[in-house]
């Protein structure tokens, strides 16, 4: 369920870092808690933000939730699939429905995040 090579946050985002770039998304648990997702608001390429800053939001039928950046970085690419098909976030949150790709300001931030095992323990407890 939760890819071993990803890192996770208490805010229910995941990070898949490869060298100086990383892909960021929300977890299966997050989408399941939100319910039917109807709208995803994401930054534009070139935007920069600090770790833990709000970089976008996900709206379900009933509510809006901010997305916090697990790492500091600059947006390289935004997943255009989600503007037309936000419901993909319910179907494939760890894969096709990634949110953004970033250039990491500080790759060391990634190592400090939770492992898949720790995250599962976190949401289980």
């Amino acid at each position: 369920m939760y890819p071993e090579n990803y890192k996770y946050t208490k805010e229910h985002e995941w990070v898949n870092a490869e060298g100086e770039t990383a892909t960021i998304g929300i977890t299966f648990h997050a989408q399941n808690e939100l319910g039917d997702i109807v709208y995803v608001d994401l930054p534009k390429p070139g935007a920069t933000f600090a770790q833990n800053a709000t970089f976008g939001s996900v709206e379900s039928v009933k509510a809006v939730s901010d997305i916090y950046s697990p790492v500091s970085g600059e947006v390289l690419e935004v997943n255009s699939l989600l503007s037309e098909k936000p419901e993909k976030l319910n179907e494939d949150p760890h894969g096709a429905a990634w949110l953004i790709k970033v250039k990491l300001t500080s790759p060391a931030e990634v190592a400090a995040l939770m492992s898949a095992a720790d995250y599962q323990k976190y949401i289980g407890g």
Partner: protein
Amino acid sequence: MSDPAPLRKTPLNDLHRRLGAKMVDFGGWDMPVQYSGILEEHHAVRQAVGLFDVSHMGELVIRGPQALNLVEHVSSNWAAKLKPGQAHYSGLLYETGCFVDDILVHKVSDTEFFICVNASNQEKDYEHIVAHNRFDAEVENQGAQWVQIAVQGPKAQATLQKLTKTDLAAIRYYWFADGEVAGAPARIARTGYTGEDGFEVYVAPAEGERIWSELTVAGQEFGIRPCGLGARNTLRLEAKMALYGHEIDASLTPLEAGLAWTAKLDRGDFIGRAALLAQKERGITRTLVGFEMIGRGIGRDGYEVQIGGEKAGWVTSGGPGPTVGKNIGLCYLPVDRAAVGQAIEVLVRNQPVEARVVATPFYQRAK
């Protein structure tokens, strides 16, 4: 700091948990917001039939030789016009003409009225009515004595009819009958909060779980689904039905909320009438309208509405309309800027997003 009061539970609480519902704190009640998903539940009600536990709603009974006098004094609609077995929507108002609550008044007999009120207002409503009871009538809070199950959707009648000998086809919209459902005494009202045909069934708490289960079996062939408060909200929003604390509250009047028809100013006196007459004479300055989003974004409850960059009003309820296929909402606007077609902007996280005033209700079922 004292601990917050424990959440109140309906008699069906355990059942919801067994069904895997997501539970939320709704005005102090531990209620299911969804089971399988809000969209799926919404569509089930529009296309077939859905089942809602609305036992958190309050029930007040007014009885006695002057029951009608008390109802007519505290309720803005015209209860004298009701026949036994008939119900209507009404307002419980303060002297200011603003809402204590919105209510459903059922006339059981010439000396008994059964009033369905909002969950988190039931104690306030009870106290309000008692405080104004200068008649030969008694008021009883029966909130804990009823389970209320709403069966809603085009297949509601076919579902419920399997469990009752009462001829449901003979119960017209906003009428009710006392009978039995699955062998248990039940008050069966053709009312609802979804914009669909359907029934609200009142039974004793001990019978609630069994009747819910029997309804589930009866509706299986139609694809019946348990539905939570999430779908209840999208359904009522599409039908432009008011929600206390959103479209109406202690600072808003029926005239402003588009509910002038619930306040019968031409009959005798009632609480709030003088204020409403004065407001009508002066003219209202703001009014409730429907809007749809044009730009990308969803206007949510509490968001500011602007016209030409200036603050003009606020969103009372907003979200996706699953059946209308648009992002919709209700908002208050100045009366002279409230015509259908009026361009507005909704401030979505401080960004103005284009929207426009549209005709309501957003959804109306084919009759």
